[in-house]
């Protein structure tokens, strides 16, 4: 891995830190990345499925997941984890992520104050698996022009001022995040900006140390020279000196350790970070600066001389032809007055030449020669993908099966009464539709929900019956007024025949039929009725199409099953309404003798 990040790198962001994510997306837009740098967000306590963000002046949605494994299942290519968990949770998040073999190459940890022992365990576990940990206690890292972690680099204005929008030629490693910004600025003024930069973090135990990052930069062809900003405390700088002496690092290094002030004071004054206090002479900033100077690093006389040193090294490399002049790329501007959208549409779009269903122009699905049937269009607009033929045919079968059930059912009756009152088609239709609910047509939802529950939880038919008894409701989809075992419902027979022939499998229907055996042994008409059959078959269809349990349950809760009944029955209702209009029937008034009047007279 010679480059830490590329323009294709995508991350999973742990914790829905909206402002930091927005800054990443603003950066992505500014540098014209093809894909946003965040593939998904892990938000364990959120109930939402996605979060909206700006991408330039438009908005995009980033999916939300409850856990890292869930997110990685959907986004196997996201190989960076940005762990914004608190010091209490960050450790568990990292340990879980490391166990997902081969998923993450880099894990960044922002929390400050993770217990040292936990930080060490986590860093070691990552090292054993070849995962680069940046942090803890860091603002992160940046590969200018490719990928930027969260808040590093500051505002977009500062990023552009510091030329962090495109690749330069310096590899920068610091401990502090605040000084990282400052160094980027200095490098942009005195040289041509940075190619890759990492703030390794201020805690005593950080995952990747100076040497890890500098060795990678040594092999990164974009990096022509490196800057190391060290600190008083620790011996990490000596590992870099060893690597230079042994020839593992050959690119020029400019370096400085801050904290030279510490030598003037007794221990007890803590200058800077937790990691920053010298326990031995070799750990003082003075000693490290001297050792690095002796090893041939470019070490200025004081922090104040760093700009001049950088300028000298840059000019030298430029004159030798190691570094070429960079042509500044175009920067995309983000409007300051962008506005969040109130509505979202993910199924169709009417903005182009021709309106589309899921990206397909209507003319490409409308006529018979396109090969698209009504069921195809439904699967596009309702479920955002084209279902295979067996499923499309099933959907159409369902619609045809539920289209009408005579004039006496409540919905048809209402529609007829309304039509006879002189109302128009839409009013009449609505009055019919309004009767659809728990008692009329609602059994499909219930049957799907409960039979799925029984099946998923491996309840035996007997256990299922006692479970339903405990719920205190009759089993939805079981029982018919007239039809029975000996007098079967031919609609159901037709459905079963179709399923046997065309469904790859139908485990939930099979399960429901086992339950039916038990219920019909008690009473002959307690059959799996047409609503029940459709409900369980829909679950079978979705299972077969590869939806997971959560998705299927979301369909059921959203009322998708009921929607099939509503759509199908509209055909029948409209038929009845047109029938009334055609017959020009008069206003309907219910006869007195069909009403039981039982009104008590009030005392005057």
């Amino acid at each position, binding site marked *: 891995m010679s480059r830490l990040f590329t323009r294709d790198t995508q991350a999973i962001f742990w914790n829905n830190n909206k402002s930091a994510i927005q800054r990443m997306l603003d950066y992505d837009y500014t540098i014209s990345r093809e894909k946003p740098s965040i593939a998904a967000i892990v938000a364990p306590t959120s109930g939402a499925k996605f979060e909206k963000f700006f991408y330039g002046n438009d908005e995009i949605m980033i999916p939300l997941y409850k856990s890292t494994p869930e997110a990685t299942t959907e986004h196997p290519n996201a190989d960076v984890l940005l762990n914004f968990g608190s010091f209490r949770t960050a450790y568990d998040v990292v340990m879980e992520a490391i166990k997902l073999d081969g998923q993450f190459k880099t894990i960044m940890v922002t929390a400050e104050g993770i217990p040292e022992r*936990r930080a060490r365990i986590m860093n070691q576990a990552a090292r054993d698996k070849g995962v680069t940990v940046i942090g803890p206690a860091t603002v992160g890292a940046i590969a200018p022009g490719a990928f930027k972690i969260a808040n590093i680099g500051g505002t977009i204005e500062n990023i552009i*001022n510091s030329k962090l929008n495109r690749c330069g030629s310096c590899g920068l490693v610091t401990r502090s995040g605040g000084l990282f910004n400052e160094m980027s600025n200095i490098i942009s003024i005195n040289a041509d900006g940075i190619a890759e930069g990492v703030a390794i973090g201020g805690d005593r135990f950080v995952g990747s140390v100076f040497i890890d990052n500098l060795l990678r930069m040594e092999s990164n062809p974009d990096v022509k020279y490196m800057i190391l900003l060290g600190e008083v405390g620790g011996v990490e700088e000596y590992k870099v000196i060893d690597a230079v002496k042994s020839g593992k690092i050959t690119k020029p290094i400019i370096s400085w350790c801050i904290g030279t002030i510490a030598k003037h004071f007794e221990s007890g*004054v803590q200058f800077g970070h937790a990691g920053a206090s010298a326990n031995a002479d070799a750990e003082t900033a003075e000693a490290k600066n001297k050792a690095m100077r002796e090893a041939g690093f470019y070490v200025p*006389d*004081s922090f104040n001389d760093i700009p001049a040193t950088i300028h000298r090294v840059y000019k030298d490399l430029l004159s030798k032809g190691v570094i070429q002049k960079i042509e500044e790329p175009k920067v995309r501007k983000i409007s300051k007055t962008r506005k969040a959208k109130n509505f979202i549409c993910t199924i169709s779009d009417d903005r182009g030449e021709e309106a589309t269903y899921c990206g397909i122009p209507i003319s490409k699905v409308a006529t018979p020669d396109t090969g698209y049937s009504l069921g195809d269009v439904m699967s596009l607009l309702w479920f955002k993908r084209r279902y295979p033929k067996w499923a499309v045919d099933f959907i159409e079968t369902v619609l045809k099966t539920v289209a009408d059930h005579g004039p006496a059912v409540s919905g048809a009756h209402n529609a007829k009464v309304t039509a006879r009152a002189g109302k128009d088609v839409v009013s009449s239709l609505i009055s019919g539709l309004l009767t659809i609910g728990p008692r009329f047509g609602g059994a499909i939802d219930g049957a799907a929900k409960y039979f799925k529950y029984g099946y998923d939880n491996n309840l035996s038919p007997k256990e299922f019956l006692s479970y339903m008894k405990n719920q205190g409701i009759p089993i939805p989809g079981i029982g018919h007024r007239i039809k029975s075992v000996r007098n079967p419902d031919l609609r159901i027979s037709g459905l079963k025949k179709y399923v046997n022939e065309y469904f790859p499998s139908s485990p939930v229907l099979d399960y429901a039929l086992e339950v039916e055996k038990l219920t019909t042994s008690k009473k002959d008409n307690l059959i799996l009725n047409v609503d029940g059959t459709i409900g369980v078959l829909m679950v079978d269809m979705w299972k077969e199409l590869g939806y997971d349990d959560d998705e299927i349950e979301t369909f059921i809760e959203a009322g998708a099953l009921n929607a099939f009944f509503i759509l199908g029955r509209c055909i029948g209702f409209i038929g009845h309404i047109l029938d009334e209009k055609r017959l020009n029937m008069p206003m309907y008034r219910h006869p007195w003798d069909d009403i039981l009047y039982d009104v008590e007279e009030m005392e005057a």
Partner: protein
Amino acid sequence: MAQRAIREYDGKALFSKHWKKYFDGFSYSFKSVLVSSGDELKKIAQKHGFEWLNQEPLVVKPDMLFGKRGKNGLVLFKDKKPGDVSLEVAASWIDEKISVPTVLLSGQHGTLTHFIVEPFTPHSGEQEYYISATTVGEDDVLYMSTEGGMEVEDGWEEKVTEVVIPINMQDANIDHLVHANAPADLPEDKREAFVSFAIDFFRFYRDLNFAYLEINPLVMLDNNEMAILDLVARLDDTAGYLMVDSWGKMEYPTAFGMEDQSDEEKAIAEADARSGASLKLTILNPMGRIWTMVAGGGASVVYADTIADLSGNVSDLANYGEYSGGPTTDETKFYADTIFDLMTRFKDPKGKGKILIIGGAIANFTDVAKTFTGIIQSLEEYAQKLKNVGTKIYVRRGGPNYKKGLKDIKEAADRLGLYMEVYGPETHVTDIVRMSLENGE
């Protein structure tokens, strides 16, 4: 801060609290009290359970984090001969020590306030051992020696056995490793017991999130009775939330001699504790000529470095500190008030003017104009006093809204008649130090 020293008394109390769990098979009678005066000691001696204070000869030591107490003559273990210190003698020794300032051989000075009092434990040199554990690099290291006491520090290389224990090593392997690497010169009859104790000691150190733990000397008495004669311990306080029950309420005393914080430092520390932002102040030399008010931890260090480097005289630097993490306007004003008040108390004895550095790196997301509002309010209050001591002010800052911030503060200075130069990100972060010094000559 992450690693924090605790008192010897508190360290021993932790041993006692967890003894059964970790050191089953050994015994330890936790006979220690922590007192601040002779009176307090006498009062405890009357309590049930502390009869030993009257019955046994005592040892008294200051318990204030510093070491080499023996060499500093601060261990009371004899009146006329070793092991004859009575309660009365101990109490009057304590009262004598708290009444006068103490200067250590290291030069640290302050007043003694805390003493640990324990029974005198007669034992022979052979019974003394050394044991400690700490973190070196990424590993834990267990140090063991058959010699305890002050002698172990001379000839450390020859006398001490080190066992490096990787962070992810399993318990069974640790046992094996310590067994295999125990000091070669352990007496045969003590070998098994010492190794077993060393393994227990390491687990105790590890599980309780110590950063450093040392017993020197550890005395192995008969019947597996252990005496912890001297103990040094540092805890990793970031593990505090995991250790609420194991540690109990833990006190982290400031280093000896450092407890004499000024009222101003205390006030800033209190404001820091109350705030989500970070406010830090250390006064290095109240008569110093150069005062800093710097945003950000890293920047505060480089300003201090640069002042020391360029002024050539570190005593010019009056203070060290930082404000960061988005302090409110009120918090910033309070911080500025404190510094302006301190720097205007004395005129420079050599008649030079004072320098005020209002510095900072390029902020990530702190609104510079907002934080400057607090400083401007404070400048308005202290303008006359600042002029009285001949203050020249140098400002450098970048980040969100910095142009407005710089313009506002410059306008305020002009209005108030204060000398001020302002610079943005185009000027190197510490270059105002050079400018201020060259201008002052």
